């Protein structure tokens, strides 16, 4: 049987070729083509601007072809007068197979081969006649073997292009749910002119009744081996034809569903409703392979249910009303002419955004950790939304603050949320970002003066507490609660130069209160951090109350640190160790960040009377080193730290060595005071008054106990007198060769 070929254009002579690329290809095929299995067959003029070269290819194919490529294939290479287009390569055989990597054409016209993986502008850079012939030959060879479509390449869709969008529910088993109770959809695009955008009815925030609801006809097909792209259906019969090869009789399905709709909804409601057909199509790589992917397509029917029902002979009008016709086995009188007039729009089915999608797009592992957040101010709100966009979906928000207009400047919420609880509004925002967000809200501040532990912070059921309250009271309260889960605290320094990140270890051996002390110590001992706790540059009063004060800090700074906090959380969430990190940048810079990780030494803690003294081995080692340097004499100095009078706790953070005018011998030490006042003031200034004088330390010689001597007791009396004025105890720390002793001055009373 003679091969039937498409007839395109008018034959011309070689001399009539005027397009340079066409001439080059003709010359090459004529002289070199046989080496590449290609012979020149003729030239064509196609319209005014196009010229074509007919080539005959001897193909390279295995005995058993995946796609019916013939021994010889005739192709037409069409060049356009505009040089910025790639030539179209059209197989001319009328029964050329529908196979992957062919480009859609108008209905009834031959398809062209999809030869270029790269963009046109890149392919044009290196295209030569030889490369073009190689590509065509390669296409035939690989298509015949079924290997053109890479094993790692996603399967070809059935159809491409769409007139609008349909957002699929995010539930993992949405198809199962759809089988039993098809989801209704709602059109959120306001104008018929715009391309429709359909969302599940349940997620439509503000459904406007004047926009139609769409009832769903859900169809699951038999598996389909991926192949050539097909034309999108433009009317109902074309949609019917598209689904026949995959085992779907759309007419029967429509009749049955329309009959149900009319029975369930009644005449008025159902006549005007619209229909969307959702098709779930399992795809295989070849006829014999397993299902690799399931594609979902949606088709919007351009007539209301009543009109479709009449055309399908399942409804008819009786006295102005529609009534159903009993579904019987005889062939219904389908009005094909009417059905042809019902347009169909293909909708691009897209998944709603959920934590899986967010994690995938972020390239981060998804976490199901339940996170309690305390404090949803400017930093907290921005960190939480950042983390939500990274795929974190389970939250419990604690914040009793209401949104005020001035908050809009640095908060993710806006003026429209004024007067609402920040926690509630932010929860709504998180649910808007991820369809599967699970957010609980406690619209009240933590009562940090109470012993009670609110629900949502306990170890059981919550994986983390994120403290963004920027309140020492909150972080200390968290630190003191044994039944609370592991905590992370993030806050900015008042001038915005630094972000402080404190993370408790998994066992909570190092808690936020001590980690806070360590960051002070680091600031004291790191010269470039000396200014980070400087006061804010300006304050702004936004209300009449004494506390209605905000401070000057640009949003770009908050956003920068919120991003760094989110990154820190992303990287450190699975790290079991405690961490104190200071991220520092200068305001005049563009975000160059210096990272300081503070060394965390084992804690040394002792209950002395009703006070708990806490320090660490770092400080004891430091003092022991000073002691050794001065041996055989004693030595000493002042202790730096802070008192938490509410929790009756003394933190010993650092110490100063002996002032130059100190007197010392092997049995005696008298601490001088030269420069000491300035030194202590400097410490207070560097730490925003958080670290202060808390007591004295001195060493005892070798072979001497660390119990206070008679001299020491005298010193303690002096301390008690001074500190007692402030109702605080004075601390004395005695350092021996291997041991140490804490003595509190108020023990003397």
């Amino acid at each position, binding site marked *: 049987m003679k091969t039937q070929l498409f007839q395109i254009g008018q034959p011309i002579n070689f001399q009539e070729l005027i397009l340079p690329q066409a001439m080059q290809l003709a010359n090459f095929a004529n002289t070199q083509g046989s080496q590449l299995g290609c012979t020149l067959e003729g030239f064509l003029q196609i319209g005014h601007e196009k010229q074509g070269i007919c080539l005959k290819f001897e193909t*390279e194919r*295995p005995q058993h072809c995946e796609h019916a490529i013939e021994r010889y294939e005739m192709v037409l290479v069409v060049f356009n007068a505009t040089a910025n287009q790639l030539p179209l390569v059209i197989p001319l055989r009328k029964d050329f197979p529908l196979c992957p990597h062919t480009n859609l054409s108008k209905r009834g016209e031959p398809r062209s081969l999809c030869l270029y993986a790269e963009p046109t502008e890149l392919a044009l850079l290196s295209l030569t006649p030889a490369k073009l012939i190689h590509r065509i030959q390669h296409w035939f*060879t690989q298509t015949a073997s079924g290997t053109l479509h890479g094993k790692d390449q996603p399967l070809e869709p059935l159809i491409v292009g769409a007139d609008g969008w349909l957002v699929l529910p995010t539930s993992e088993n949405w198809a199962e749910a759809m089988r039993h109770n098809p989801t209704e959809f709602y059109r959120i695009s306001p104008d018929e002119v715009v391309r429709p955008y359909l969302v599940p009815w349940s997620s439509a925030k503000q459904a406007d009744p004047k926009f139609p609801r769409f009832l769903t006809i859900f169809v699951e097909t038999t598996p389909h081996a991926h192949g050539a792209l097909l034309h999108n259906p433009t009317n109902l019969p074309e949609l019917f034809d598209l689904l026949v090869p995959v085992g779907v009789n759309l007419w029967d399905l429509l009749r049955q569903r329309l009959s149900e709709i009319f029975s369930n909804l009644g005449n008025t409601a159902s006549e005007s409703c619209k229909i969307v057909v959702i098709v779930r199509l399992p795809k295989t790589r070849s006829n014999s392979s397993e299902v690799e992917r399931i594609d979902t397509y949606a088709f919007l029917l351009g007539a209301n249910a009543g009109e479709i029902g009449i055309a399908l002979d399942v409804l008819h009008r009786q006295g102005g009303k529609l009534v159903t016709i009993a579904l019987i086995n005889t062939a219904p009188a389908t009005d094909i002419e009417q059905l042809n007039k019902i347009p169909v729009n293909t909708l691009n089915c897209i998944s709603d955004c959920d934590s899986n999608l967010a994690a995938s797009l972020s390239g981060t592992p998804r976490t199901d950790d339940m996170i309690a957040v305390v404090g949803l101010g400017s930093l907290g709100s921005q960190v939480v939304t950042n983390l939500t966009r990274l795929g974190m979906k389970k939250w419990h928000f604690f914040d009793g603050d209401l949104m005020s207009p001035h908050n809009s400047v640095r908060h993710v919420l806006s003026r429209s949320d004024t007067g609402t609880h920040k926690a509630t509004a932010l929860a709504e925002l998180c649910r808007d970002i991820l369809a599967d967000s699970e957010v609980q809200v406690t619209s009240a501040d933590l009562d940090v003066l109470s012993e009670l532990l609110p629900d949502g912070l306990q170890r059981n059921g919550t994986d983390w507490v994120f403290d963004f309250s920027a309140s020492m009271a909150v972080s200390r309260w968290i630190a003191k609660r044994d039944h609370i889960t592991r905590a992370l605290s993030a806050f900015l320094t008042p001038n915005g130069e630094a972000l402080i990140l404190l993370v408790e270890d998994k066992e909570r051996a190092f808690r936020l209160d001590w980690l806070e002390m360590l960051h002070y110590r680091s600031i004291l001992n790191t010269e470039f951090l000396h200014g980070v706790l400087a006061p804010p540059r300006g304050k702004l009063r936004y209300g009449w109350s004494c506390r209605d004060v905000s401070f000057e800090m640009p949003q770009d700074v908050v956003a920068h640190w919120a991003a760094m906090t989110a990154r820190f959380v992303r990287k450190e969430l699975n790290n079991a160790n405690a961490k104190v990190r200071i991220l520092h940048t200068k305001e005049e810079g563009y975000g160059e960040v210096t990272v300081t990780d503070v060394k965390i030494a084992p804690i040394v803690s002792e209950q002395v009377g009703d006070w708990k003294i806490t320090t660490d081995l770092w400080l004891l080692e430091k003092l022991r080193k000073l002691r050794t340097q001065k041996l055989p004499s004693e030595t000493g100095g002042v202790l730096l730290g802070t008192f938490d009078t509410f929790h009756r706790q003394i933190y010993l953070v650092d110490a100063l060595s002996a002032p130059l005018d100190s007197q010392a011998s092997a049995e005696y030490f008298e601490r001088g005071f030269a420069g000491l006042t300035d030194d202590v003031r400097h410490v207070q200034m560097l730490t925003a008054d958080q670290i202060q004088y808390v007591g004295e330390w001195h060493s005892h010689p070798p072979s001497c106990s660390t119990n206070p001597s008679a001299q020491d007791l005298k010193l303690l009396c002096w301390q008690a007198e001074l500190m007692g004025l402030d109702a605080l105890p004075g601390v004395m720390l005695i350092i021996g060769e291997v041991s140490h002793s804490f003595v509190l001055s108020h023990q003397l009373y």
Partner: protein
Amino acid sequence: MHEIIFYPIGNGEACLIKLNNGRLIAFDYADLANPNDPNDRRMPLRENFKQDIGWYGHFTKRRTIDVLAITHGDLDHVKAIPEHFWLRHAKKYQSDDRIKFDEMWVPAALIVEEGSEEDTRIIRQEARHRFLAKEGILVFSRPEALNAWLQKQPDGVDKNIENYRHLCRDAGTLVPSFSKAQDGVEFFIHSPFASRTEDGLLDRNADCIVVQAVFVEGGRETKVLLSGDIPNKDGEFDEIIRTTKRHGKQHRLEWDVLDVPHHCSYLSLAPEKGTYKTKPTEEVKWLLEQGTQRSIMVCSSKEIPAETTDQPPHVETLRAYKEYCDAKDGDWRVTMEFPSKQGKVERTRVEITANGAKLIKHAGNAAPISTTAVRAG
């Protein structure tokens, strides 16, 4: 994927089978090219063969092939083997630039025949050495065919033929060192074989190995008939076909790829050349019809002349083969005509894929130059 490479060496045979598990089998090896003749188009074999076995690999340099099968001792099937391969029987054939082979396959005739000359004689010495050493050889024969020769060996040689039985493999059986499960291929031995006559068993066709290789790739079997120089002048080929049919093993004569015997000589089809087209005997005709749809015939020969000639290849025989080839929509290839009858010749490659056999038709048909994105934004 397995691959079979037929080298364009004129009227001669050199074929390399590359299995997908890395094992290599050479079916004949003859370097016939004359380096001093600029008009000699035949491919020089040594460097090209070394390249194909991975001698010059970047990471592993292959020095050994698994099998060197010698279908028979004619020079157009063995020339230069003593120059290019490492032979165990004498030091002078052992240098680092030589290719080693673990096992050699030979017909019994190669061992027992006297009066061989040139390279054939040296190969015979190697075969005899390996046989007596009882390792590195498979003789396609019944052991009895070697007994007379064995008894003539000098004293001190083990003359009990039973002790050599494991080195022999008779027609109608499979080569033991390959299997479809382990290697994706099995070799069924058609020839040499013994015929039953009134006088009992008589060894005929003793001088040429014929095997059917059955490859498995992606669950699909592809059958290749390697026929060497099997003649049919006196009905030798007919006899193989008849015997196979008599044993009910017709499927052992099915083929997807036919290695056209004896460089397209009419003598492999029939005793008569024919005036326009050689008419094959009934048995050979039947065999040619066993080719599957889109099967491949590869003829290791010179360019086929347009006119009749005395020496093969014979144009009359070509016409006969082409008739059967076209009937199956098959591919026909003459090794010295690829990619064309003039200029430089290329290897003929047949790929054994999950989609069956595929003849590579386009010389240097590398994957198209496709740029990948090197910039992201």
